[in-house]
């Protein structure tokens, strides 16, 4: 693998080709906020909070750093007026769902996001997909998935699989930035296989 020398926030950064801008930045001790990213999972690129400004041959563009590949002489700015605005508005959109999520509240402070800018939404899931992807990629169980499309998109535990697999796992709960995964799981349990948790855990 050949090396690529790029510039992040004015600092010369050495990276290996094939790496993403996010990986290169983290290696150089430069922090970029993320919500849907997880080291054990394939980059997903949907929360868009890790957007940075890149300059290629004089052309400025906004890209998600968790997927954008490093390249020689790439100029990256992890903070700029444009980047900060994107992050602020995205946070304000997500705070309409989960105004008290610690991860979101911390970022909101940093980027001056107003948690009451937009009308509140009833679901506090931000659809980062960490639970869905962790279950599919790491656990390979697919006990939780996405259903529906557009604004009706939501996560849903599949009772047939969840009743067998989830009782002694529940590792996705800790990944969830809003605790919605727990809520969705216990709702599924209560509706589809009540009591199964106790039976499954052999504590009855």
């Amino acid at each position, binding site marked *: 693998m050949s090396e690529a020398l790029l510039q992040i926030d004015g600092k010369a950064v050495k990276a290996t080709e094939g790496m993403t801008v996010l990986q290169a930045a983290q290696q150089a001790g430069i922090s970029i906020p993320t919500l849907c990213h997880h080291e054990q999972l394939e*980059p*997903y*690129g*949907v*929360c*868009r*909070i890790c*957007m940075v400004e890149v300059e290629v041959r004089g052309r400025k563009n*906004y*890209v*998600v750093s968790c*997927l*954008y*590949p490093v390249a020689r002489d790439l100029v990256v700015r992890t903070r700029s007026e*444009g980047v900060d*605005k*994107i992050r602020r*508005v*995205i946070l304000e*959109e*997500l705070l*309409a*769902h989960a105004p008290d999520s610690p991860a979101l509240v911390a970022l909101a402070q940093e980027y001056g996001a107003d948690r009451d*800018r*937009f*009308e509140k*939404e009833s679901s506090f899931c*931000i*659809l980062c997909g960490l639970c869905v992807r962790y279950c599919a990629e790491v656990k390979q169980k697919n006990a939780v998935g996405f259903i*529906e*499309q*557009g*604004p*009706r*998109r939501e996560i849903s535990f599949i009772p047939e699989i969840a009743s067998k697999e989830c009782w002694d796992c529940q590792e996705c709960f800790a990944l969830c930035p809003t605790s919605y995964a727990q809520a969705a799981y216990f709702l599924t349990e209560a509706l589809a296989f009540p009591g199964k948790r106790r039976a499954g855990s052999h504590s009855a």
Partner: protein
Amino acid sequence: MTKLHSAAELENLRAGILSSRDPAQPCIAVCAGAGCRGADAGRVVGAIEEEIGKPGLADKVNVRATGCHGFCEKGPNVVISPGDICYFEVKPEDVPEILARTIKGEVIERLVYAHPDTGQKAVHLGEVPFYKHQTRLLIGDNPKIDPMRIEDYLALGGYAALSKVLFEMSPGQVLDEVKKANLRGRGGGGFPAGLKWETAKNAPGDDKYVIVNAHEGEPGAFMDRALFTGNPHKVLEGLIIGAYAIGSHRGFIYTRHDSPQLIKHVRNALAQAEEVGLLGENILGTGFDFRVELHFDVGIFVSGESSALMRSIEGNPPEPRPKYIRTSVAGIWDKPSNLNNVETWANVPQIISRGADWYTSIGTERSKGTKLISLSGNVVNSGVVEVPMGTPLRTIVYDIGGGAPGGKAPKAVHFGGPMGGSIPERFIDTPLDFDELAALGAPIGAGGLLVMDEETDMVDVARYFLEFLTNESCGKCVPCREGMRQMLKILTNITIGKGKSGDIGRLEDLSDVTGLACLCALGKTAADPLRSMLRYFRDEYETQIARGSEAGRSETR
């Protein structure tokens, strides 16, 4: 039909078809396109067939059910050749008279076009104002073709370009001709097709795919369906030529599952082309193999986005791919995949037959050829229009479209549907040009043109388009899903008199971020109509918001 093994055999077949036809014998072409069928064209065709069955008529006149002629407003349309005599709003009851007078060489006055204001009549297609100002290189063949019969396409010189390519040109020469023609993608982006082909051609790997994007889904766009349903072989010929240039042996046609007539015609065209050896193994005996599969969407607009479309062909949910790699390098199953829209492919045969020099003589400096336009909204003559690039919008809206009905003044023209933009009437002399219209904020997009009259509520138009896209987004990325959700809520509130101060600032922030941060073109352009309206019709938004704020204050008092 037997399989053709050479260029000479194709020409023999063509000569045979032509010699069996008497050009002097009248042929009645009834439009059976989607619009005319809705206006009962099916019964008109049935009535003609029944009438022809009567003794003494069968050898004197022919009948043909065709694809869309274009003038949907006046359907069912009938065109009688020779002479291209046009009858409009034809009813089954008119049929006996049409037949009786046609064989005598007479014209029925009451069925010809009469100008709504002057009453001036127009008998022949070239004299009808709707058609007179058009240049119908692509759609003009529709009245001459029964889409279910490959013979009709062959009779008009069909597949001669493919034969020329296979026997007289190298793949590189084909690519050069398309690049020289500066054919720009008709699906929305206006990206040069030749450059896209070149990327796929040069991408490493033996398996390469070519794709027809026939997923026309936005409100106010019906030109691709009209062209593909009415003349499927033209698109197919373009696709095979592209496959030869790129080095592909497998093609896909991706369309909507809910266009039964289109599906029937395309399926039939694929089978007929294969039967005569113009598709499949060893095409025209040259050793070139190329197969085509037909695929359907799952009923969501984002399926038409190139990377989502390719995921769908693979059998995955149609969600756009966030990777920074072009589909022409890594598309379907990560193989180089070249996708062009229906109209783009349909342009290819004539570029080959008539040459890039001829093609570039039509249009403006940077936008060449003709463009199909779906003309609708507050306009007297709605329908499918084809004009040279560079035609002033005034010609399309007034000369062809007849202006707004009821003596009202057009207020705005809107291009590109829910991902396009509205410009005020004062820009009506702008030429039809990819770059000039994009600079004004109303990119041509796929070619849907809506005329809006003085009574149109511009807040409600933006709300309508956002409502459409909100339902058609996949919901995967935050700025698209959440941005549209919030914009739609704010716009809905404004239209029901619940606007608040700060709404315009909120809309601007949301639309800016949606435009910059979304992962696919649907999201990136979803706020474009709203942005164009905040640019040109801001006062309407301010007035409606002020009315809402006023009402809100009086309620709390």
